[in-house]
């Protein structure tokens, strides 16, 4: 009996120790909060808050400018005055005038803006600090419409689905390639995906610099990369039952990796166009088409020696290309900068994971393995091709 109660007491003690650090932490936090000002006085004095707004989006509609601002700092921030092109303008605020941490409001300014002219908006806080944003050229912000929706979809098809499908048409030719050349094409795919992965990663790093530091951009990127890398690993395991991916399974993984990248690409195109930062032109669209046709080659290579139906190929093309359409919609009609960072991070993680899968395939199937000239040459050629055609989409 005694031994039993001793054990249960020990068990209670063990449980207690799981919460003791948390309780003590709460106590210490309470003390620090209470005496924080005296703590700061020991070492100096705090600088005043920057009192700058984060101007997230400026939208133009006939006779009106809408400015969405966020408070990126700890202290509250109050919208007191609004300038357009260095002139005080009347305005109303859709939302609260005083913004708590990370809160947003939209300022509505009746204004007779001139299309294609540069324009500057300035939002002044109650402490007199003016945050200025320059728009290189004012263009009417697209509003959601059936035409616009279909238009974005058409652009997505042209820069995503179509080139990938065309690339898949290399399949009959690939079927005649010998094992050495086939492994070279697989390595080419790995090079291509490395390029896309790095591009997505750098894109997400660039986007996160625009986020308020409180939103922890780098942590968000690592989270996105890790999530998609591990998710893709789990998917690969499930598709192949544990062994290295080959054939259709590998083609599907490549298609998913490319598809996630194209989601980010579509998002970038849609958002840049909606914000008036991008000219959608013939050259840009053609550039993206040439850039993306090699993605089809990457998907076709793993199934070069596998029987696949046209329907399966169409499915693969959709997996890789259709996300571009989704991306243009999200980018064109929403304004979440957090989403952009996360999507590109997810794309990077997926691409890198597929590089690992393809690498394992090449290591196993290429005559001479990863060290063969075909593998090394193919990998470098993949990167070089993406770089060269990337200039067109740049």
């Amino acid at each position: 009996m005694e031994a039993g109660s001793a054990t249960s007491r020990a068990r209670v003690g063990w449980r207690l120790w799981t919460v003791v650090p948390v309780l003590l932490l709460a106590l210490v936090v309470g003390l620090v909060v209470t005496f924080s000002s005296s703590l700061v006085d020991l070492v100096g004095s705090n600088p005043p808050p920057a009192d700058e707004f984060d101007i997230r989006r400026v939208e133009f509609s006939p006779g009106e400018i809408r400015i969405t601002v966020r408070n990126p700092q700890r202290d509250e921030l109050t919208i007191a005055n609004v300038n357009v092109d260095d002139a005080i303008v009347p305005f109303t605020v859709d939302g609260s005038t005083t913004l708590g941490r990370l809160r947003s409001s939209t300022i509505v300014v009746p204004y007779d803006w001139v299309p294609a002219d540069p324009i500057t908006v300035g939002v002044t806080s109650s402490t007199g600090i003016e945050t200025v944003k320059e728009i290189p050229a004012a263009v009417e912000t697209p509003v959601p419409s059936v035409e616009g929706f279909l238009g974005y979809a058409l652009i997505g098809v042209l820069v995503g689905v179509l080139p990938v499908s065309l690339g898949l048409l290399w399949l009959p030719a690939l079927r005649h390639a010998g094992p050495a050349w086939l492994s070279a094409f697989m390595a080419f795919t790995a090079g291509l995906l490395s390029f896309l992965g790095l591009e997505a990663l750098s894109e997400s790093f660039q986007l996160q610099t625009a986020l308020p530091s409180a939103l922890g951009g780098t942590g968000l990127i690592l989270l996105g990369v890790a999530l998609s890398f591990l998710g893709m690993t789990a998917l690969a395991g499930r598709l192949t039952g544990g062994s290295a991916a080959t054939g259709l399974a590998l083609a599907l993984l490549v298609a998913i990796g490319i598809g996630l990248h194209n989601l980010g690409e579509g998002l970038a195109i849609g958002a840049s166009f909606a914000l008036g930062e991008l000219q959608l032109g013939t050259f840009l669209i053609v550039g993206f088409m040439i850039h993306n046709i090699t993605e089809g080659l990457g998907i076709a290579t793993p199934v070069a020696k596998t029987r696949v139906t046209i329907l399966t190929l169409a499915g693969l093309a959709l997996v890789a290309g259709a996300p571009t359409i989704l991306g243009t919609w999200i980018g064109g009609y929403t304004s979440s900068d957090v989403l952009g960072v996360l999507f590109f991070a997810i794309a990077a993680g997926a691409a890198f994971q597929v590089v690992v899968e393809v690498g394992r395939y090449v290591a196993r199937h290429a005559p001479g393995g990863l060290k063969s000239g075909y593998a090394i040459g193919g990998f470098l050629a993949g990167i070089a091709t993406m770089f060269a055609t990337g200039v067109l989409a740049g």
Partner: protein
Amino acid sequence: MAKIRLTRRKLLAAAAPLAAVPLVGKLALDAQAQASGHDHSSHGHPRSPASHVHGAMGHAAMVGEEAPAVGGPNDLDALLFPPPALPYEPGRVREYALTATDVDLEVAPGVFFSGWVYNGTAPGPVIRATEGDILRVRFVNAGQHPHTIHFHGIHPTNMDGVFEIVPTGGEFTYEFEARPAAFHVYHCHSMPLKKHIHKGLYGAFIIDPKEPRPPAKELVMVMNGFDTDGDGSNNFYTVNGRSLYYARYPIKVKRSELVRVYLANLTEFDLVNSFHLHADFFRYQPTGTGDTWEYTDTVMQCQGQRGVLEIEFTGLGLHMFHAHQSEFAELGWMGFFDVVD
């Protein structure tokens, strides 16, 4: 990212031969142009205004209720209306007391500027004497920085407000004979000068001639600016310290009465400021001295420059006045005379 794309796009021109399949792209472009409803063609001219809203907006219409300004109708009367001119009397002493303090000034609705001021406002109080009066100004420094008062005019150099720096908590009495008859200014002369002036330590200083000016409705307008975010350029421009104040509350004057405006420029950072009257003309006497009057509707003043305007209004109603630098006008330096019978 998008910017990189924009610049890199130019490389495409060089790669034009590669784009041997431009037809599909062109189709896409046209489809997009139509799809997004971006109908430049219907506007006819690509630079035509996007707005179909007329009236209601535009700064010319910002008057009365529409003009955002701080406070109520008579808040600035002590600065706008100078103390009355006194007839010449030999040996008379005129005493003033000025205290420098640090205050938060509301210069536009909800926008606060941490200023340094004489007697609570920027500009400070109007100091007035008649030529020959003995002027005695007791200055107390209740601010956190050393200050002085430097008066324009003729006086002994030890009363010049340059050598006698008054520390926090200190005081100094300036005493000298008021001369010459003119419209002057006064301001702090501590270093750094630019900082001490733009923070708000300045004001109007009238010395009336022994032979008085003709009777008139007298007004004082000190033009200034406020750099609320400390970047070395003004965010707001005002007359007497509040942006758009006289647009919100037009100055009522009678048509039968001569209107005399003592106009001074104490704007920092910008080299010149100006005054432009709508719908009428006025006489302008530079520095308020001499017999030469310019007949005009626009005058320009350098930093520290000032003069006297005399207006005989021809018509009734709202007469706009503002800096003829459009930027200053649209950043708050704009107002109205409401001329009544």
